[in-house]
């Protein structure tokens, strides 16, 4: 039994040393290198004044090409939308940007059926995990506490979210964090397709976090604009968006604006060609 426990003890010791060393190594890489991705940019980089700030999910990230807006208006435009994110994620991102010194004049929020989701997405929460304690991030109305295991067990947070912080991400953070590799704004879709998505169902018209974003914009003396990005021509029941007009002043519904399916990568996302046309429409309608 003695030899067996000695064997087990050495294994546990090796494992313990391994997790402590790797935890420190990964902390160093993820916390102290230049930002990779929009969330890290919001946390790590000092922010400046932005004239037009776009927040939302892939239906903004794939739709708004800020370079066109900047060329047309001569003002600064940033697309901070993140694919798959919720309105709570957008709210947290806005708070993080402000925490890093951001000021803005116009905030654009895209509304779609994800209004029904008030939770933070798992991937967004996971992306925040290494930074919450080290950067002392606290945000009103949002619970960002780490689980005891994430907080106290060395390396647990990196193993748990290995799809975001595995060895591959570690190397990418070190060697692929230049603008050449990092998608920091508009992310175009290049293919064309038009899979029928079916029919839009009724959804919640209000979301706790769109309300908080509204309050935030009012406090920051910025204008807030609401719109819905286009769906493919096959999408049924886009009239459900008309109900949003009464809750979101100045709201523009573009959901069935385009009849040409070649503008779409799929039914819920425009491709690059569509995004170019749509961005110009936004410039025109919002007088940017």
């Amino acid at each position, binding site marked *: *039994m003695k030899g067996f426990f000695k*064997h087990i003890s050495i*294994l546990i010791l090796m494992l313990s040393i391994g997790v402590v060393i*790797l935890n420190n190594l990964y902390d160093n890489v993820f916390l102290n290198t230049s930002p990779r991705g929009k969330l890290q940019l919001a946390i790590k980089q000092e922010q400046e004044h932005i004239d037009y700030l776009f927040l939302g999910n892939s239906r903004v990230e794939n739709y708004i090409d800020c370079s066109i807006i900047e060329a047309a208006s001569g003002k600064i435009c940033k697309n901070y939308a993140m694919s798959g994110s919720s309105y709570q994620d957008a709210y947290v991102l806005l708070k993080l940007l402000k925490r890093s010194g951001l000021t803005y004049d116009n905030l654009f929020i895209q509304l779609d059926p994800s209004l029904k989701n008030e939770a933070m997405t798992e991937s967004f929460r996971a992306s925040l995990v290494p930074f919450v304690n080290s950067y002392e991030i606290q945000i009103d109305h949002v619970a960002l506490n780490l689980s005891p295991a994430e907080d106290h067990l060395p390396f647990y947070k990196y193993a*748990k979210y*290995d799809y975001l912080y*595995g060895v591959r991400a570690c190397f990418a953070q070190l060697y692929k964090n230049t603008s050449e590799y990092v998608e920091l704004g508009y992310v175009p879709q290049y293919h064309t397709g038009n899979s029928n998505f079916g029919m839009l169902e009724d959804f919640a018209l209000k979301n706790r976090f769109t309300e908080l974003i509204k309050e935030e914009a009012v406090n920051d003396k910025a204008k807030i604009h609401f719109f819905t990005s286009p769906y493919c021509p096959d999408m049924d029941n886009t009239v459900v968006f008309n109900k949003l007009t009464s809750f979101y002043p100045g709201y523009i519904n573009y959901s069935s604006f385009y009849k040409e399916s070649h503008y779409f990568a799929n039914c819920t996302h425009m491709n690059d060609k569509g995004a170019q046309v749509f961005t110009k429409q936004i410039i025109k309608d919002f007088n940017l």
Partner: protein
Amino acid sequence: MFFNSIEFLIFLPLCFILYWFVVNRNLKLQNAFILVASYFFYGWWDYRFLGLIAFSTVIDYSLGIAISKSQIKSRKKLFLFISLAINLGLLGFFKYFNFFVDSWIEAFNSLGYEMHASTLNIILPVGISFYTFQTLSYTIDVYREKLEPSKNLINFAAYVAFFPQLVAGPIERATNLLPQFSKKRVFNEEQAISGVNLILWGLFQKVVIADSCAPYVNSIFNNYESMNSLSLILGAVYFAFQIYCDFAGYSNIAIGTARLLGFDLMRNFNYPYFSRDMAEFWRRWHISLSTWFRDYLYIPLGGSRGSKWMQLRNVFIIFMVSGLWHGANWTFVFWGFLHALFFVPILLLNRNRNNLDQVAKGKLLPSFKEMGQMLFTFLLACIAWVFFRAPNIAAAFDYLKNVFTEASFKIEYLNIERYNIEMLLILFIFVMYEWFHREEEHPFTGKWKWIKIASVILMLLTLGVYSNHQDFIYFQF
């Protein structure tokens, strides 16, 4: 409860401590504890199917005694037949009912007869194929008078439900495992240490190799129409390693866990991809199943006795039944059929016992001939794996056709945002580990033992897949 879960990480040490420090006073307590622990382990997944294991246990326990007590041959045969009918009936119902109904309807419809029948929503109890074969081996061996029937229900129930190998084998013979339940286990340090090392190696195979291959395999097989030749070839290679490391990993953890409790289970894999022909491959792949089929199906059918035609018939029967054992899909049957085909030239040339030794025994590297033989055998195995992995036979043929028609060998960037090169590097390291330890059970031997253990722990931490937890593939069988 999965071997690669947090629950098992708590369950196993707890079991170990209770087993060796609390219930180690006598055999009865040890066996009762194993039975309770095994039912708890299985019930964690779905307690409703515990009744099925208990039913199977009581039936085979009673029939074993009945067979042994019967003086008349025909009555012995009747009891054996009842055991076969009940065990295979349960397996057939839970695993194959819908498959046969669907196939029946399809056959009728293809002949122009409109036929409708509804299938049932049946959940496949995890491990049913494994413990059914295990209990069958018991009654058959009692019938053949190779084994005395168990007179102790607790011992027998613990043998059937023994948690390390309950859900995915190795399929233990009663002649090997059951007698171990009749002797009080005494802690053996060497056995326990080798058990821990096997668990570590099994975890590495599963969490680092198999689970890393999984997203590549899924990405390539799910999009095979748009993949180029190189990616399709790599897809088959990745799947070959995924299924091997998934199942061998499980088997090693099972054998290691059993050793921690003082039991010796049979070896299930013996570096099958270093085989020089298909006969050798089958002596090294899923050994507990292939020897089961050999002893309980192939030999009773006549085995290698009789004319060549009879031998060929027997080979096709066991391979196709073995394919069907894996799952209720024609792809598995075809996979077995292909292996039988690969076996034909070996059988006709009487070369099925040509390569009984380990390849390049005592040498650092294989000869060119051996290397060529190993690569050719691996190629055949990969072709068959395409059928095993594809959703249907037509898709598998399409996949193979595209290997030749999408003739581009450019390294593609997969839709999982990864390059093939990363996975190939991991596989290369793994193959090197296996090659240089092919005469051992696992690599953690010799004077560099601790260095090798440390490197595997490091790879487990850095390359292991923990977020996208993959179930063991063989659980579905």
